[in-house]
């Protein structure tokens, strides 16, 4: 039986490779179709292998054991299986989605290379999850990074190339940090497996651990999109094709979280209060920053990207809180927070994949990513809008969807640990609680803006160009159903992923003394709405109705009078102006020279990125300035260059010896 599961796992990898190879067959659509089918097969095999682990977590699956010198290189344990199942699930959905989606962009993208790169990307992520040695891990990591770099620039536009280059720089700084950390920890051995690495880490001096922790935090954090290393994220996600954005946001960020947790839980000894407070603080900062920009941004996919930053911040805050609690002896909170982080990660993978898939359909329908030009889609695409509504409500962490219960677990854990003995600990808990409540409120705002302004009311822009195909609607619908199922069956999911201690019965979640029954909340809500429906039938029998245009002080009304995304988020922009620093300029130009009252106004509103304006751009300018000074020694004199080379050689030898 075990033998079969291991073969299934291996077959999953094999089918991913096959999918990439077939894709390169040619530009004919049959290769595109075959490639997606193979990816679906790979995903189904991957899911079944993961479920084998969920049901019998005692024994991991090992593959390629015959390569004894690398053993145990590739194995899947319970923790890896959680993330492996996410990759498999999302790749099934994206493959189903991509079949019609990519076909409608045949002219824009080079389809064979796109599909081959997707397969390489998926394979890279699968290898990262499976590998238990530095070399394999870093190989998978690089395959994933480089494939996603090429995927970001797949439409070959100027802006996409800029975004991709920024992404390449950030991701390679991160990869370099990871490699450095692994090498420092293993004292230079690249072929070391994680269990040996862990035993070496336990006896390492504390300064080394601190350095390694910092490098790991930067490496995984920059990949996950932690502020201030998130700048690539709002550029790269919108530039990529939508199913790639779904992959990147839905799974790639999760792979970074997987790596961070793998290192913290299985390799490094417990990090101290200081380090955990850093993770917590940076997580909270990222969450607040991400959500504010998600509220004010006007680009559909950038809003989603900022919302991803917010969610990643939330997950890092949960992780930081967990280790803080562990260090302070609050074991209950430690377990609760880790499980909450993993559960919320699963939920985020589902709803963010769905939302990015929605974004592809919406952007193709209106030919713009600008929310100001959208609207009125719910009338034309009712099925899509219902799924989108569910996904948006889930992303806003409202009951009774999956993410709500992830936050519920964490908040309950915090609430019950408030009255700890140390006032300092209580202060940290309360601060986290209050700040996350604010972030939660603003996240609702961001999601309402995204859904309501793109779907409801009258269309602000042109007509709907292309309706979604059934494959696309199916993927999106599955995501919407999945977040609901994740909510109702949260106890079952927790049991599968090893969080049994947080369930009271097969249908109840429990944190400490508090219990909740997710299905009861859902049925109560449905019951109340049904009751209202019945009541309305009984009491009022008004059937006839009249259609008339909306009332706007008696004047004829058109779509240009509707609220736009900019107007909708204006109060938040005003209240948080000290953080957002939006630049608003109104230019007044006289139209007639004779009459000073006849003027035309132009208003521009610039959303600035404080990290770019106060961090990256000055740093870049400083670097370029320094380079100008360095240029002085480049006199063009060959003998001087020879001297420089000689001095470098001497210095290198001196340092090396």
């Amino acid at each position, binding site marked *: 039986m075990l033998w079969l599961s291991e073969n299934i796992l291996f077959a999953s990898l094999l089918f991913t490779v096959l999918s990439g190879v077939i894709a390169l067959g040619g530009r004919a659509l049959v290769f595109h179709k075959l490639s997606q089918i193979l990816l679906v097969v790979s995903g189904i095999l991957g899911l079944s292998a993961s479920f084998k682990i969920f049901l019998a977590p005692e024994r991991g699956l090992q593959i390629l054991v015959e390569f004894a010198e690398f053993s145990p290189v590739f194995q899947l344990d319970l923790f890896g299986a959680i993330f492996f199942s996410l990759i498999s699930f999302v790749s099934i959905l994206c493959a189903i989605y991509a079949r019609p989606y990519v076909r409608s962009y045949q002219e824009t993208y080079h389809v064979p290379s796109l599909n081959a790169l997707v397969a390489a990307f998926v394979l890279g992520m699968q290898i990262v999850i499976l590998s238990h040695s530095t070399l394999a891990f870093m190989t998978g990591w690089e395959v994933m990074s480089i494939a996603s770099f090429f995927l970001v620039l797949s439409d070959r536009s100027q802006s996409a190339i800029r975004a991709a280059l920024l992404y390449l720089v950030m991701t390679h700084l991160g990869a370099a940090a990871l490699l450095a950390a692994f090498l420092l920890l293993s004292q230079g051995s690249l072929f070391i497996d994680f269990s040996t690495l862990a035993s070496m880490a336990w006896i390492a001096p504390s300064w080394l651990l601190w350095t390694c922790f910092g490098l790991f935090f930067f490496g995984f954090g920059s990949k996950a999109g932690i502020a201030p290393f998130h700048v690539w994220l709002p550029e790269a996600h919108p530039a990529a094709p939508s199913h790639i954005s779904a992959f990147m946001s839905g799974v790639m960020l999760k792979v970074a979280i997987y790596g961070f947790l793998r290192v913290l839980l299985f390799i490094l000894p417990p990090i101290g209060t200081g380090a955990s407070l850093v993770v917590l603080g940076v997580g909270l900062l990222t969450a607040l920053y991400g959500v504010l920009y998600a509220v004010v941004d006007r680009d559909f996919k950038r809003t989603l990207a900022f919302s991803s930053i917010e969610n990643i911040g939330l997950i890092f805050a949960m992780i930081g809180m967990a280790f803080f609690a562990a260090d302070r002896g609050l074991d209950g909170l430690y377990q609760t927070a880790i499980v909450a982080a993993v559960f919320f990660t699963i939920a985020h993978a589902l709803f963010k994949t769905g939302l990015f898939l929605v974004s592809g359909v919406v952007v193709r329908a209106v030919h713009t990513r600008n929310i100001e030009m959208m609207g009125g889609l719910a009338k034309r695409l009712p099925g899509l809008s219902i799924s989108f509504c569910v996904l948006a409500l889930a992303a*806003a962490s409202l009951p009774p969807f999956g993410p709500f219960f992830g936050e519920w677990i964490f908040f309950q854990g915090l609430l019950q640990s408030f009255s700890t003995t140390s006032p300092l600990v209580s202060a940290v808990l*309360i601060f986290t609680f209050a700040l996350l409540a604010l972030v939660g409120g603003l996240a609702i705002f961001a999601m309402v803006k995204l859904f309501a302004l793109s779907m409801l009311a009258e269309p602000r822009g042109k007509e709907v160009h292309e309706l979604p195909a059934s494959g696309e609607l199916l993927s999106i619908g599955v995501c919407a159903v999945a977040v609901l199922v994740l909510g109702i069956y949260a106890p079952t999911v927790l049991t599968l992923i090893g969080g049994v201690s947080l369930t009271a019965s097969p249908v109840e979640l429990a944190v400490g003394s508090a219990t909740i029954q997710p299905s009861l909340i859902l049925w109560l809500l449905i019951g109340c709405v049904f009751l209202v429906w019945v009541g309305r039938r009984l009491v009022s029998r008004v059937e006839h109705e009249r259609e008339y245009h909306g*009332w706007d002080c008696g004047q004829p009304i058109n779509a240009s009078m509707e609220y736009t995304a900019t107007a909708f988020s204006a*109060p938040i922009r005003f*209240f948080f102006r000290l953080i957002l620093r939006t630049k608003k300029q109104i230019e007044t130009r006289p139209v007639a020279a004779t009459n000073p009252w006849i003027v035309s106004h132009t208003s521009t509103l610039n959303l600035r990125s404080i990290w770019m304006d106060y961090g990256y751009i000055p740093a870049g300018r400083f670097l370029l300035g320094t380079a100008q000074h360095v240029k002085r020694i480049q006199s063009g004199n060959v003998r001087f260059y020879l001297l420089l080379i000689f001095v470098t050689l001497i210095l290198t030898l001196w340092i090396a010896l």
Partner: protein
Amino acid sequence: MITILMLIIQVILVLLIAPFVTGLIRWFKARLQGRQGASPLLMYFALLTTLKKEHVISASRSWMFRFVPFMVLGVAVFLALSLPLVFSDGGIAHVDLFVLAGVLALSSVFLVFGGLDAATAFGGMGASREMTLAALIEPAVLTTFAAFATVAGSASVQSLFGQGMTALTHPALLLSFSALILITLAENARYPVDNPATHLELTMVHEAMVLEYSGPYLAMLEYASSIKLTVFLLVLGNLVWIKPEMYLDAPTIGLGVLGVLVSVCVGSFVLALLESSMAKMRFFRMQEYMSIAFFLALSGLILILVV
């Protein structure tokens, strides 16, 4: 069995008196401002009349427009059902403060959807304001509830707002109680956050969102806001005096009903007094109001942990 019976009594009672509460506040307000005032029972007639009127539906609406009244009234019924309003151990034990906060936000979100779907400038303006208020009140709501939960030792709404706990159980709860009053005003679109009596675009929040609704849908939305207000007044009342534990005999039920009536009468009077004695705040000063609510709640919570 007795629990279900008591729940039914509670829901029916709250749903019955809800329009009366809205009417009563208007009557008290008129009296305090030196006007004769319409009968407190007027709201029943108004709702019944609206129920019989014809729908006039905006040509711009989508499916959402029709779904909103059901969802909003559904959530209001959910509140009337799940909180301990008539008896101290009434309500549904499984609902806790996070569900309560989430459900309140859910009702705001759908109102906002309805406001935006009408495709008018008024609807959008009200929606934008309502969403801002709902987003910024969230930390105050959770922190206030957390303070009550810390004192009660449990997060279930039964122990928060029933079971013998009042605002005097712990001195710091007075701060949380004040925060809860501010939250009540903000959640129910009352002074100084919103003016429930005007249709002037400068001041309105809630009314702007429901402007395009007519006929039975309007009645449902108005009824929902009456229920929500009644529920909040009863919750505040619960924190001032203790309700009887549920028991199936006439005196207990009578005592419960009496408690409800006293709660809403006193609550309405205080609310009318507040509204007659203060001005509405400018919308762009709302962050001050929200900050006050939040810091009141936060200091309450900190005091509980320190004392």
